């Protein structure tokens, strides 16, 4: 048997005339971690879906465990020891954590009847071994997205795989959960398991990968041992040009007060959050997943009802809102965390996605002016350099970065005074990330106040003028840009509840 557990040779694949992969080859040895990087649309996911048997390659061959693999069913591939954790969570929301982990492979007794006791015992053992603390009997719908991701990982590991593909597992993990993931990967390596790790976050690739393969526009750019790469070269490989600075800076003074939230509480998790927001600034919101960051964004935007406290526009007097529609009228915009379920109509055109909040202003005598709609879309396309085939294109066929730009375009069309960005660069490639940062600065220059929630500390520190750290539904502390360091933020974010309440 060869020293490689997996060889994918000269794989090509095209969809409806678009070449997604062109003669891409990768080789993996047992017990190593392979980073697979590239911008969105580079072909990483397509390559992995071919490995998983979800797509059939147009050309090329897959040699797995020394034998050429023919087209096989998903079940056969899982049985052969390949396990794939997709970006999109594939859990049954109504079923419990343990049931999800053993879905399709439930332990049964001799009569073929489900053995629930064994199911929960085995799930418990597995989670314990992985150091994941979760209530096994909780339906998955009750978990945070990050916890769901951990369940997904546990599910893959329960299949005793020899090769595990993780497609951006870290996109929704932060802080301690990420450390936990890396510990799991390290222990897998020791057991001789091969891991293919797809990520946008280069720090992670450097931290965990032994070898890195870079794809661009469906072609293989390079495969290098991690030791031969530094961050700058890797970025250059990915985008095809050097990126001078990651966080664009501008000098500006604090503007006027635009929004005041006092003692905001909700049914969700918020317990008395107060904040002030000034024109032209970026207020960073840091904190662990589940600390109430997203809930704060939703409360500010009127998406969740307040059980206490108030949110007011400064200057505008007593403007208040109880629904997103009213918040939009008051000049707010929310770019939500979960683009596909809260941000985009994925099956609808770019046009309707961009114009939906301002449709009524694009009419004459009740009739929509198609030319005006197109003008809005064209303006957004030019301003944000959105890559699309036409304004009729369904947003599900855009890359992650372009999808995010469409969501941004939608909210810029409303000409807001306050924009709340919840994880604005999640699942966005390096090039598009930089464009989003630049856009944020341009908005600042026009006096727009930005609230930015992010799990990426470099982004929080690099972009924010002030940083609020959330912990358990409260503000654990405020840091000025100068005093903010990763250690200080993590300290505030992870303090025990009682201490947090004191600050």
């Amino acid at each position, binding site marked *: 048997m060869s020293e490689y557990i997996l060889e994918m040779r000269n794989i090509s694949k095209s969809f*409806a*005339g*678009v070449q997604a992969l062109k003669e891409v080859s990768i080789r993996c040895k047992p017990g190593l971690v392979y980073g697979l990087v590239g911008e969105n649309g580079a072909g990483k996911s397509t390559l992995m879906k071919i490995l998983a048997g979800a797509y059939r390659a147009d050309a090329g061959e897959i040699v797995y465990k020394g034998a050429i693999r023919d087209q096989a069913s998903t079940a056969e591939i899982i049985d052969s020891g390949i396990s794939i954790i997709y970006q999109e969570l594939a859990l049954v929301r109504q079923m419990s954590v343990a049931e999800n982990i053993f879905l399709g492979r439930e332990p049964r007794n001799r009569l073929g009847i489900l053995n629930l006791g064994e199911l929960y015992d085995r799930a418990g053992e597995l989670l314990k071994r992985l150091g994941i603390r979760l209530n096994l009997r909780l339906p998955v719908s009750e978990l945070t997205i990050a916890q769901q991701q951990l369940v997904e990982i546990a599910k893959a590991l329960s299949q005793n795989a020899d090769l595990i593909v993780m497609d951006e597992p870290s996109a929704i993990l932060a802080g301690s959960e990420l450390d936990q993931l890396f510990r799991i990967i390290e222990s897998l390596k020791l057991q001789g398991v091969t891991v293919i790790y797809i990520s946008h976050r280069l720090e992670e690739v450097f931290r965990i990968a032994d070898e890195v393969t870079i794809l661009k526009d469906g072609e293989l750019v390079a495969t290098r041992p991690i030791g031969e790469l530094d961050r700058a070269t890797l970025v250059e490989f990915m985008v095809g040009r050097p990126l001078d600075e990651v966080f664009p800076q501008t000098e500006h003074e604090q503007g006027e007060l635009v929004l005041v939230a006092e003692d905001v509480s909700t049914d969700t998790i918020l317990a008395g959050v107060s904040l002030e927001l000034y024109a032209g600034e970026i207020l960073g919101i840091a904190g662990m997943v589940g600390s109430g960051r997203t809930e704060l964004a939703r409360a500010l*935007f009127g*998406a969740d009802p307040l059980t206490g406290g108030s949110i007011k526009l400064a200057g505008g007097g007593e403007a208040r809102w109880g*629904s*997103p*529609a009213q*918040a*939009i*009228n008051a000049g707010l915009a*929310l770019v*939500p965390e979960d683009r596909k*379920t*809260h*941000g*985009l*109509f*994925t*099956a*609808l055109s770019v046009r*309707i996605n961009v*114009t*939906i*909040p301002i*449709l*009524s202003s694009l*009419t004459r005598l*009740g*009739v*929509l002016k*198609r030319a005006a709609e197109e003008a809005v879309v064209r303006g957004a396309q030019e301003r944000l350099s959105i890559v699309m*085939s036409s304004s009729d294109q369904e947003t599900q066929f855009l890359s992650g970065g372009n999808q995010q730009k469409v969501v941004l375009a*939608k909210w810029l069309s409303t000409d807001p005074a306050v924009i709340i960005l919840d994880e604005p660069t999640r699942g966005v490639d390096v090039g598009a990330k930089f464009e989003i940062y630049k856009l944020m600065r341009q908005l600042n220059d026009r006096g727009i106040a930005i609230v930015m929630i992010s799990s990426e500390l470099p982004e929080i520190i690099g972009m924010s003028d002030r940083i609020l750290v959330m912990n358990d539904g409260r503000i654990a502390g405020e840091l000025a840009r100068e005093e903010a360091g990763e250690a200080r933020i993590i300290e505030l974010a992870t303090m025990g509840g009682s201490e947090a309440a004191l600050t």
Partner: protein
Amino acid sequence: MNQTANLFGGKSKRDSRARAVFLRRNGPIIMVYAFILLLVIIGITQSERFFTERNLTNVARQSAFLGIVALGQMLVILTAGIDLSVGSLVKVSILVSAIVMNGESGNVLPAIIATLGLGVLVGLIHGFLINELRIAPFIVTLASLVILRGIGLTISSSPVGKASREVMMFYVQKIGPIPVIAWMFFVLIVLTMLLLRYTVFGKYLFAVGGNIEVARLSGVPIKAVRYGVYVLCSLTAAVTGLLWLSRMGVGDPAIGDGIELQTITAVIIGGTSLFGGRASVLGTLGGVLLLGITANLLVMLGVNQFIQGLIQGVIIVAAVALYKQEGD
């Protein structure tokens, strides 16, 4: 050969992509119309009576009866809802209009107002239960199907009331070779297309059906949209009740049963997704014509009416199975 491929590589690639997109969007509709064409050819070759003015006029009129309600049903399904009550509402509408009219010309206007008012009322009740009490559209309109049918049969289990002379004449009137009722359907088709393409309400229907949470977070007035769409759908049923009165001449309580399933079938055959966010007026028209012509043809060919149901069922499954292949 190789050179040609290089020279035109870029263009043909774009063409094939555009073709793929066109096919994916319009494949179902093309298939439905191809099937209709096939049926027409079978009709012409296999039956002397099929391709006669008299028969085609009948098909057009029957299609209009089903089609007007199917348009309303399509709008509701576009929002990821469903309206199971339309058949029962047609029944109550023909009874109410017949009773109010009572054969008097002077009562035509009051009868129309009463019937349309009933449609608006039923639509508002549906909207209220779905919006304010958050009951699923399926449940709300299922209850309404049963309740309205009960009301209809309580009003009378035998024919009541009477259409006025003008109303009865309306059924046979033509403009050119085409019955006025078919023209009405045609106008409503055009209006629905314009509604979906050129009005804010139309776009909001797509938004609510596409993803209701995204719609809410985008400031779409979800409740107003749902009130609107259920009222529109009930209105199409009320109008169809009036048309049935013009055909029957009396308030016949046997009218209306099963229209809900026929309209849903037509909408689905037309490529509209039951999950919302996608709709096609031409597709729905195709679905209506396909059902209408199939039924007509089976009668022409003297096929047992129980087998008709079976054949229609096969058509539904075949049509939907074909789209699924086309979609991939």
